[in-house]
C-alpha cells in the first residue's frame, strides 16, 4: 500500500520532476486548443484529470488479468469508457460547454498522457498509488495549461472567466493575436522555457 512518503514522491514527480508538459512534452494536442478561455480550459482539465486518475486505477485493478499482448487494446477501451462518460455527462448537464469544447472532449482519448500513465505506472503498481499517480500527473499538466489560458484570455480579450478586468478591458490595447492559434504556441513556448529555466536552477541548488 502507499505509505505517506511514497505518496509524496509520486506527487512531486507528477507535479514537477516528470511534469507531463515541460519535462516530457506529452499530450498537448487536444487540450491546447481550448486554452483561449480560462473556464473552458478548467473544464477540459478536470475532464482530463478524471480520465487519467480513473483509467489508471482501472488498468491497475485489471493488470493481473490482462494478457500482455492485448493490453494496449484493453487500455484503450478503459480510457474510451471514461471519456464517453465525460462526454455524455457534459452534454446532459452543461450543453453550452459541450458545444464550446466541440470534438476536443472526445479527443482526450488520444491524449498521450492518459495512455502514458497507464503504460508506465499503472501496469506495474497497485490501484491506489496508480490513482494518485494519474491524479497528480493530470494536475501537473492542468496547472500549466491554466497559466497559459490565464494570460491568453487576459491579454487577448481583457477578461477572466468572461468578466471584464479593470485596466485590461479599458486602457490595455488588446492583443487579439493571443486568442488566435499563434498565441497558443507562443505562450506554450514561453511557459516551457520559463519552467525549464526554473527547474534547471533548482537542480543546481540541490547539488
Amino acid at each position, binding site marked *: 500500500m502507499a505509505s505517506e512518503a511514497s505518496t509524496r514522491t509520486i506527487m512531486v514527480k507528477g507535479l514537477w520532476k516528470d511534469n507531463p508538459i515541460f519535462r516530457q*512534452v*506529452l*499530450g*498537448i*494536442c*487536444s487540450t*491546447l*486548443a481550448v486554452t483561449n478561455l480560462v473556464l473552458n480550459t478548467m473544464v477540459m482539465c478536470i475532464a482530463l484529470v478524471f480520465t487519467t486518475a480513473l483509467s489508471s486505477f482501472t488498468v491497475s485493478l485489471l493488470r493481473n488479468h490482462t494478457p500482455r499482448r492485448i493490453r494496449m*487494446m484493453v487500455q*484503450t*477501451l478503459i480510457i*474510451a*469508457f471514461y*471519456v*464517453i462518460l465525460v*462526454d*455524455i455527462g457534459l452534454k446532459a448537464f452543461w450543453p453550452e460547454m459541450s458545444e464550446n469544447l*466541440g*470534438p476536443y472532449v*472526445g*479527443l482526450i*482519448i*488520444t*491524449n*498521450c498522457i492518459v*495512455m502514458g500513465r497507464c503504460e508506465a505506472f499503472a501496469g506495474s503498481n497497485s490501484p491506489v498509488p496508480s490513482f494518485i499517480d494519474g491524479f497528480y500527473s493530470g494536475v501537473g499538466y492542468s496547472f500549466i495549461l491554466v497559466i497559459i489560458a490565464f494570460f491568453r484570455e487576459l491579454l487577448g480579450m481583457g477578461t477572466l472567466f468572461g468578466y471584464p478586468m479593470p485596466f485590461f478591458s479599458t486602457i490595455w490595447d488588446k492583443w487579439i*493575436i493571443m486568442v*488566435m*492559434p*499563434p*498565441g*497558443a*504556441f*507562443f505562450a*506554450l*513556448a*514561453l511557459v*516551457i*522555457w520559463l519552467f*525549464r*529555466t526554473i527547474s*534547471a536552477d533548482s537542480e543546481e541548488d540541490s547539488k
Partner: protein
Amino acid sequence: MFEIGAIFKIFLATVLVNNFILFRFLGLCPYIGVSKNTDSALGMGMAVIFVMTLTAIVTWFIYHYLLVPFHIEYLHIIAFILTIAALVQLVEMIIQKTAPALYEALGIYLPLITTNCAVLGVAMLNKDTLFGQNLSFIKCVVQGFGAGVGFTIAMVLMAGIRERLDIADVPQPLKGVPIAFIAASLLAIAFLGFSGMI
C-alpha cells in the same frame, strides 16, 4: 456545379485555412517528435494522408450503417478509435505483403499513427460538421484527404526550419521543444494570411 465549388472550398479550407496542426492543434505530438529532418517528415506525412483518407471513408460507413441503425450513436468515440486501430494494423499488413519498398519507407511511422489525435480528429470533425449535409460522403473523403495534405505541408515546412535551427545558437533552456513552438507560432501567423481566401 454548385456542389463542386463547395467541395473544392472544403479542400482548400482544410489544407490552408483550418490547417490541422497550426489551427486546430491536432497531431502536435508527431509534429514535434518526428519533424527533425525533411525526409522522415515527408514519410510520416504520406502515411498520414493515406490513413486519414481511409479513416474518413470507413468511419462514414460505420456511422451510417452500424451506429445509426442500432441507435448507438453515443458510442461513436469508441467505434472510431477501434476502427482506426484496426485500420492501421490492416494497412500495415497489406503494405508489408504487397509493397515491401513502401513498407520500408513508411515502416516505423505507421503504428505511430494510431495515437495521432489528428486522425481521430478527422473522424470526429466529419461527424460533427459534415454528416448532416447532402453529398456528405464525398465531402468527408475530401476533408480527410485535405487534412492529410495540410498536415504534410506543415510538417515538411517545420522540418526544414528545424534543420536550420540545429546549427543556430539558441539559449540552453530554449533548445529543442520551446524554440520549435516559437517557430510553429510564426508559421501559424503566416498561415493566418490564408484566412482571407475563403
